[in-house]
């Protein structure tokens, strides 16, 4: 099994949804529409590793907001961010938390859509702590391993969707 397939299986085990896409801005925008049909409030965080034009069509989706107020953010339905790395064994995506709005878009929206380039998938979490991997990107930044939607078992049964997103959708660019 290759790393991409292993990643997809592990992400699904963690209750995320995953699909593979070609590197096309339009296809990404269509996938966003499919993942969150009828969404009214969409936050698009600028990518820093992926080419910025990949998110061009997303920025033109109806409902995209670029506001800065608490009220706008608290009503966000979809947050689109890049993921600078993926972890095959755990199905995690790594998302920066201090580049522009990536932290908020991946946390405050009900659905988080993470865009991951397939060549950025590593095998296990500790690979991100090795200086020779991904040109040390993991080692250097402020980021979060996101593994599935937010969840709790504190109220008795397992509930998905707590303070963070209720859904995590991952677009793997091949």
């Amino acid at each position, binding site marked *: 099994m290759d790393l991409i397939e292993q990643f997809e299986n592990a992400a699904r085990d963690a209750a995320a949804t995953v699909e593979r896409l070609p590197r096309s801005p339009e296809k990404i925008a269509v996938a966003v529409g499919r993942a969150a049909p009828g969404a009214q409030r969409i936050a698009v965080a600028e990518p820093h590793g992926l080419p910025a034009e990949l998110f061009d069509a997303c920025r033109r989706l109806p409902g995209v907001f670029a506001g800065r107020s608490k009220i706008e953010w608290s009503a966000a339905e979809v947050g689109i961010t890049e993921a600078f790395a993926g972890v095959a064994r755990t199905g995690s995506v790594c998302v920066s938390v201090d580049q522009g709005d990536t*932290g908020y878009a991946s946390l405050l929206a009900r659905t988080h859509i993470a865009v991951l380039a397939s060549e950025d998938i590593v095998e296990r979490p500790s690979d991100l702590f090795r200086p020779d991997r991904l040109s040390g990107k993991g080692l250097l930044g402020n980021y979060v391993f996101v593994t599935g939607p937010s969840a709790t078992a504190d109220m008795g049964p*397992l509930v998905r969707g*707590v303070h963070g997103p209720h859904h995590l959708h991952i677009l793997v660019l091949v």
Partner: protein
Amino acid sequence: MTAPPTPALDSPRAIANKSRKSALLAAIRMALRVEGPAVRRNVQSLNRNRYVATAAIPNYEALKNRAHAIKERALAQLDELIATLEASVTRNGGHFYFASTAAEATRYAAEVCKRRGVRLVVKAKSMTTEEIGLNRLLEKDGIEVAETDLAEFILQVADEQPSHIVGPALHYSRERITELFKRAFHTDLPLDTGEELTKFAREKLREKFLDADAGISGANFVAADSGTLVLVESEGNIRMTTLLPPLHIAITGVEKIVPSREDLGPFIELLAASGTGQPMTSYTSVISPPLRNARVITDGAPSEREFHLVIVDNGRSKMRRDLVLQEALYCIRCGACSNCCANFQAVGGHAFGGETYSGGIGGSWEAGTRDIARARFSDLCTGCSRCVAQCPVRIDIPWLNTVLRQRISRHDSSAASRAMKQVLAGVPAADAGASLQKLFFGRYDIAGKWGSRLGWLANGMSRLSVTRRLLESFVGLDRRRNLPPFASSTFIHAARKRTPRSGPAKAGAARHKAVFFADIFTNYGSPSRGLAALGVLEAIGVDIVVSEALPDGRAALSQGMIATAARQARRTASRLAPFLADGRDIVVVEPSVLAMFRLDYRHLLTGEDGRKLFESLRARSFDAAEYVWKCIQEDGLDAAAIFPAARSSRGTRLFYHSHCQQKTIGSAAPTEALLRAAGFDVITSEAECCGMAGSFGYKKEYYDLSLAVGRDLFGQVQLAEAQGERRVIVASGISCQEQLQAGMQREVVHPMELLCELLIEVVQPVGAVQA
């Protein structure tokens, strides 16, 4: 004796401080009555998940070694690391503060909040802030504190201390949470499902997140070289706490510091798997605050981010200087030792825990951050050792608790009583604090010797109600328990009188030479399993001799009588050494004794010679069934031909319960393999421990708890039999056998007894040709 006063039974806070034994006993009663079912369900589920998750980690054992080595290195150079960390945090643009005491830490945090005009703090789960009592102090200063982890939210509403290091409110069932919220929030909203309760809490807390002036978090790990914090969670509240408010204060213990960012990898992989049993939890943040590039979202004027890291000592330096307790500083707070603990599964951390810390490792932490008397609950550690293999940083938790037990005994006793025990009973000075109860159980060899000599008289006496009352009053032996009857003819005596079974090979030509260690439990309490083992070993051609009967130290060690145990260990090891030199392996039938040779003697046999002796004992001692399985495989024998299960008058369907320490030292799996190879249909128990755990279940204060643990096991037998006919109950440990016999009113046999009954004739080894 008068019953101890009963504090308010339903108030966990009232019994959080267990300095007095009465509080511990009240807490056990409360937990069994109120919290037990929810604790059991949640903790056992975490336990099952951990086994699955850790089995999936590539190089799991090597990863644990690495994690242990990193912690060892970090603690050795802690002073330098603190200086490096301070420089890193300052370089990142944050503020660093080292707090020697809980009071210094809380005062610092309160002052930062006051200076910034903070009215509302959102707080992420942190055991360290529980330990230092942060909330109370902030609230006294008029600052509102909102606990945002849903479990901590429940505890804040209920005003209770955490009952588990990872799942602080897992003693609450969904029904009890509904009841609590309806009462506390005077609401008629439907709150009858996990989703409804979560939504209710989320909406309350979303407002707090957006309004908060400050976020206070802990940290799971801190890298000194970069000032990087790792924060592990599932709900997203820690991310909110560290990202939304402009002011972030992280408060954590000095033991969380590791040298470099590269050291974080192994811990990230181990923590989630060992804790909640997931490959990763939903969110693992890796941040070096302040997060300068993330704008603060605000409706008012743009505000600058500010970050403070408060590193708390509060007793940890003292723990570091303590040759035993220092190991507790390796703890990464995953809770695995709680989850795999049979006693913890039954009562949870409101009984098996103190004001902050709970479970196996909790006693060391309460002793280290408060005082030794607060560690009294560590008496619930039976030394079953199940946690030893589960700890991701390889802390020998039972050993820590044994040492705590010795120190608590000393703390509880008067100098006069210690002097008397030294003089009258020859108890070593270090153990002279032991109570009469501990002396009675710790020197089972003495009781056994006299019990056997007096034979029927002792057994008859021990069944009389007057004797039981006396034993209960003086040594705390519960009158509802039957002491295992003393053998009127000891194992040694019976072994001498028997005619050895002639094996396939003549003595001298045997491929396997061994000495059977006559442990005191077999010698005085259960000679039949020892005799059966001799028969089985001889039948497969082992040249076997019998050692003298010696106390190995297990009984003493389990009572915290370490000096006595060490003395007995040295004597036993020196008597076994000539056998080893003669090329004989050591065969043991009692798993708790074998565990001494394989695990515990490393603490008791010290010095260069002691270490060498321990290494050869560890490598060359075997459980009887394990040894039989090893010989059979080496000699190419057919187990089904030697022990044809179909011949058993008991039937071929078994329920096998392996002893807790047997599982840890790896001799359970070979026993099961042997029984299956003989042709038995074997269902194995999933219980971590039977609940008797040596002397634990005999003690009057723990009888009910022991039985509650046992019911799990009894239920598993019933479940196994619900799908078919009755099964023969088989157990390897003498106390497991007693627990099952008493709880199920059924006969329980040892694997060796079962196999010995099947021997028909002398077996010629097949393919046993020497190379």
